[in-house]
């Protein structure tokens, strides 16, 4: 046995040395030398499932004569873990805003060659300087949305859009076992922070503790913490108020007037979904061309028509279904827009968010 232990130790040492050496290579990838419309192989796309109209992908393949190999991930964090470990051999990923910030800081993304993406000029000026990626140096937004409340208005009537619907004992407390919160530390803690009048990006321990206390108290009437079937559970009558993402609710509600989506008056999360190119992308030029393709106004509109999330493309409006365009639940009015805010990476405080949220639920 002794020999095998020695062998194992040697292999361990080798592995760790290799790991240590490998890490240098990823620091600050240089921009790719690509021009608009250039392709350098098939596109490897790591995407959310059922997010993009499949015809968009098919059209891209037809126009540029490349294939798109598409794989799917259920959450940003899983994608990140694979990329960090060096096991995601893809060109383009689709991170949400806060994830762009994390990946950018860690040099996991390729700086965009703007000349290869002329359509980047189509991005609405509201989105050209987001806090997570000022000046859009690493990412382009293609959809945005809000995190708010899905409400069963048939049962509750016209309610005041407020976080009181899920946190106030006087309001939510009357609906025991009928409230659903997201199983997401940042979103649910963020909602509690807003209800208390704090910033959702607070790094103040006392404020975070207060938010955790709110969630703990809400445990009494919270049926579940769930990030996947909240719309299902609302429609099937399992819960009457649910925290979730705008487009999913609207897609699930369809023409059903018994349900409504509201953005609480205390403010809510504004988020974007973005395309970014991995620093290790095997086909960076095809990737740039894909980004440019998605930023065409017609494609931006197709995305919105498919999934009911608004488009950050300034010129997409003319191709979007008028019905969607006029729906205030999809496109919030200016006053609501004022109250929306991005969730930002809080560095070490992320652990505190996760920890307090875990404790608050137990």
């Amino acid at each position, binding site marked *: 046995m002794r020999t095998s232990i020695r062998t194992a130790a040697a292999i361990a040492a080798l592995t760790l040395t290799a790991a240590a050496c490998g890490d240098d290579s990823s620091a600050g990838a240089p921009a790719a030398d690509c021009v608009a419309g250039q392709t350098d192989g098939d596109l490897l796309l790591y995407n959310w499932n059922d997010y993009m109209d499949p015809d968009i992908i098919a059209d891209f393949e037809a126009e540029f004569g490349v294939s798109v190999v598409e794989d799917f991930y259920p959450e940003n964090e899983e994608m990140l873990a694979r990329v960090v470990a060096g096991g995601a051999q893809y060109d383009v990923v689709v991170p949400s805003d806060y994830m762009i910030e994390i990946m950018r*800081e860690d040099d996991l993304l390729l700086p965009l060659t703007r000349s290869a993406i002329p359509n980047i000029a189509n991005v609405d000026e509201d989105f050209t300087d987001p806090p997570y990626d000022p000046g859009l140096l690493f990412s382009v937004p293609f959809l945005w949305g809000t995190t708010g409340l899905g409400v069963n208005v048939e049962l509750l009537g016209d309610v005041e859009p407020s976080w009181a619907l899920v946190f106030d004992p006087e309001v939510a407390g009357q609906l025991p076992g009928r409230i659903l919160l997201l*199983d997401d530390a940042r979103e649910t803690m963020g909602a509690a922070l807003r209800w208390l009048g704090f910033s959702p990006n607070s790094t103040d321990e006392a404020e975070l503790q207060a938010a955790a206390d709110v969630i703990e108290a809400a445990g009494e009437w919270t049926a579940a913490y769930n990030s996947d079937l909240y719309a299902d559970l609302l429609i099937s009558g399992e819960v009457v108020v649910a925290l979730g993402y705008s487009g999913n609710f609207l897609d699930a509600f369809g023409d059903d007037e018994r349900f409504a989506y509201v953005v609480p008056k205390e403010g809510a999360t504004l988020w974007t979904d973005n395309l970014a190119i991995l620093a290790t992308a095997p086909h960076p030029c095809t990737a740039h061309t894909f980004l440019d393709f998605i930023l065409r106004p017609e494609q931006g509109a197709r995305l919105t028509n498919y999934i009911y999330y608004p488009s950050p493309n300034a010129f997409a409006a003319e191709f979007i279904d008028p019905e969607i365009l006029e729906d205030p639940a999809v496109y919030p009015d200016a006053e609501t827009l004022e109250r929306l805010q991005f969730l930002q990476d809080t560095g070490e405080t992320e652990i505190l968010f996760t*920890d307090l949220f875990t404790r608050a639920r*137990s």
Partner: protein
Amino acid sequence: MSTSTGLEQDAVRAEARRGLLIGLPAIATLTVLFAIPLIIVVAYSFGTRTRTGRTDFSTLDLSAYQRLADPLVLEIVSRSLGYALLTTVICLIVGYPFAYHLATRTPRVRAVLLVLVMLPFWSNFLVRTYAWRVLLGSDGPLVRLLGALGIDDVVLLFTPFAIVLGLVYGFLPFMVLPLYAAIERIDHTLIEAARDLHASGWGAFRAVTLPLSRSGVIAGSVLVFIPAFGAYVTPELLGGSRTTMLGSYVVRQFLSARDWPFGSALSVAILAVMLLATTAYFRTGGRSL
């Protein structure tokens, strides 16, 4: 050294050689595909999380292990332990008579029944769990059935009951398969002999069948208990994530908290404790049965 002991030593050596030879492919595979990768996890457990959620190896320390003493961790562990034990006991109570019944059918019926046990599990885990969600829902058939029986206002979904039900459903085959394999093997003339002596069926069962199927009981309990202890998808989907189980706590360290050192330390601790417990159970558990 006499010739006979020399021969014996030769025989022992030959047996050792043959044993090693037969085990070698599995040993080699597990060493390369498991033991070596495991060293990486152990290495991570001594690292520290950087601000961006990477792991820093420049200062190796035990800080991640110190966090294991957190009361939150202990609470989560004891809760998961409770669910896993309950699941194992129910699986054993339901699974033993079931496996016994299975093992006493004709070979042909047995094969069919065995496959029928496994068949539901060749669909898709998530879809099965969602099906349970519909069944347990407040408007679902089970609540309606209870309502028709005069039991109103029952909440099934998102309760501890739903969690245990989901776990038992998911792991029952893990209990039935080794039990079946062990019971089917029992030489039935022994039972006959016992019956001749004791006459009581229960007595014969306790004296012969149960001790002889011990290996199946042990293997089955381990195969149910361990995965149930680390289960997280079922408790999340059917329990509504209202309580944190060990499995999801570990997942959260690796994913949302991006604290790989702590996630690794947790895993290493789980491995060490469970390995000791399993080995002890295998060595002594049999006798107490």
